[in-house]
């Protein structure tokens, strides 16, 4: 890592007053996703408000990523997903994104041939007019500049994103969500493959973003979840199994059972505390 994340610099990105986000909340009601008869998400209700850093956990195949796919228009779903009073289901993905919902993918999907700066510039530009699009970029937009500093990629701004280290790519993804001005950030395993130091920085960054915006993190890393989550939703077999604070959830009998497969071994809490999930 050449540079670290600067959480303080984030203040320049999150310039809008927190009050503007006060009434933001993501409201999912009776969401159902069926693939060829297989029910991947089965009647999920979920409400996440701004100022909350919600972790979505669960064993493999619990439907976490499918839930994110459904919210962002990638998977066909029934039910209701509302944000800021607007129904998102049935809209095309790019319209959902324009309504303020941003997401990342499990595998970092930055534009590898474009530079870090170009990646951020594209993320910031969905609202640009054709006239602007057809011209070359003459200056760096201020929000892009601020995001570069926040995610600690200022020194590599002119390198192709493809040469970045794995952790840096994940940070670039978060930076893109910020300049995209997403009000809801859906992050799919943002710290997978990161070193301990990078995890800590990312956690702090997400906490700060979560104070203002609506953040949902799909994560497998229990340790990371315990340290940074303000609330947790546990999914299992397409349903919400438990919801609450970190301690409430980790002490929940059903959650322990799901994570251990069987209670007979009787050391569920210990395992979760050790950060093992699989």
């Amino acid at each position, binding site marked *: 890592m050449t540079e670290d994340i600067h959480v303080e610099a984030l203040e320049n990105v999150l310039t809008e007053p927190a009050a503007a986000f006060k009434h933001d909340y993501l409201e999912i009601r009776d969401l159902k996703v069926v693939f060829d008869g297989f029910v991947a998400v089965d009647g999920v209700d979920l409400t996440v408000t701004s100022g909350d850093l919600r972790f979505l956990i669960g064993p493999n195949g619990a439907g976490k990523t499918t839930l994110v796919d459904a919210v*962002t228009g*990638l998977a066909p779903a029934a039910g209701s997903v509302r944000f800021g009073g607007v129904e998102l289901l049935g809209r*095309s*993905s*790019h319209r959902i*994104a*324009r309504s303020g919902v*941003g*997401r990342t*993918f499990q595998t970092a*999907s*930055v*534009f*590898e*041939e*474009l*530079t870090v*700066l*170009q*990646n951020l*510039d*594209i*993320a910031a*530009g*969905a*609202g*640009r007019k054709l006239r*602007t*699009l*057809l*011209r*070359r*970029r*003459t*200056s*760096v937009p201020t929000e892009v500049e601020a995001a570069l500093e926040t995610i600690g990629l200022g*020194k*590599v*701004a*002119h*390198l*192709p994103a493809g*040469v970045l280290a794995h952790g840096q790519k994940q940070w670039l993804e978060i930076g*893109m969500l910020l300049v*995209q001005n997403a009000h809801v950030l859906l992050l799919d395993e943002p710290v997978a493959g990161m070193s301990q130091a990078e995890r800590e920085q990312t956690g702090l960054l997400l906490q700060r973003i979560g104070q203002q915006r609506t953040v949902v993190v799909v994560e497998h890393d229990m340790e990371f979840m315990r340290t940074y989550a303000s609330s947790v939703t546990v999914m299992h077999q397409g349903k919400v199994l438990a919801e609450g604070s970190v301690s409430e959830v980790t002490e929940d009998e059903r959650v322990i059972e799901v994570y251990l497969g069987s209670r007979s071994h009787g050391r569920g809490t210990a395992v979760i505390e050790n950060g093992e999930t699989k």
Partner: protein
Amino acid sequence: MNPALKTWAGFGGAAVLLFAVAPAALSDFRLNLLAKFLCLAMVAVGIGFAWGRGGMLVLGQGVFFGLGGYLMAMHMKLADAGPGGVPDFMLLYGNGVLPGWWEPMRSPVVTVLAILVLPAALALVLGYAVFRRRVRGAYFAILSQALAAAFALLLIGQQTVTGGTNGLNGFRSFFGYDLADPLNKQTLYYICAGVLLAMVAGVRLLMNSRYGELLVAVRDQENRVRFLGYDPALIKAGAYALAACFAAVGGALFTPVAGIISPADVGVVPSISLLIGVAIGGRATLLGPVIGSIAVSWAETGLSERFPSIWTYFLGGLFIVVVAFLPNGLASLTFRRRPSPATGKQTQPATSVDLPATSGGHP
């Protein structure tokens, strides 16, 4: 050297070559041949943009080339026939009544506008409909090729209004200028050279614009672009429309230069050979498609004059070698240049994508 300076140097060099060296060195016959190649190179510029930058394997550019060519041919036939006249072949094969949709092409202004707008609009609508359904890759390639085959069949079938297999030919004048005059033929060459250079310059500007960056982003990570709030279908359709417009202009100029436009120029085979030049030259570069296309056309003429039976094998072999060993075309051999990481910060904001695959754009 500064990339921008390099580009302009290359551009100036090409202009000297096209406007001074070629007319002086080549006979009238060869110059006319070169003009023909330049028209095909215009199609290649569009293919390079849509395929190299936008990732759309456009296998049916013959359709738009043909649309442009036939629109121009219609106007020239009508102009030759005189006011109120009917083209000769209609008297020969048909009942001698001019169909209503031929009538607007009497006007030179309408013709030029139609050439610039119609194929592009068709590509925009068609492209948007196809890309919205997330048809891409080989499926899109097959679709575009089927379109070329259908278009050629349609032209052949409607002999009374399109001239059938013979196409449209026997033009005497081009916007009032006698085509038998060698001087006018030469002027036509200059027009082709100028248009081609303008197209290359336009693509260069587009490649460096925000739209150009966005197009590369769509090519590599379409879904990611979608989740940033853009409609990738529209972005791709735009590039497809531009390629269609370039192909149509190429076709429109090809018709007076070659003196004929026929279904043999618009079907599957010509559509593929247009693409081969681009692949060989280097599809993602600026000049690769142009040079590749001209080189292939030139080699085709030269080799097929001497060894008529070998040419197809040679072209096929070259295509296989290039695709297998130089996926980015011959341009990656000559222009390979990797930006050194150390210079990353000091240079001006990255306005061009300086990567091996694309660096050939700065000759």
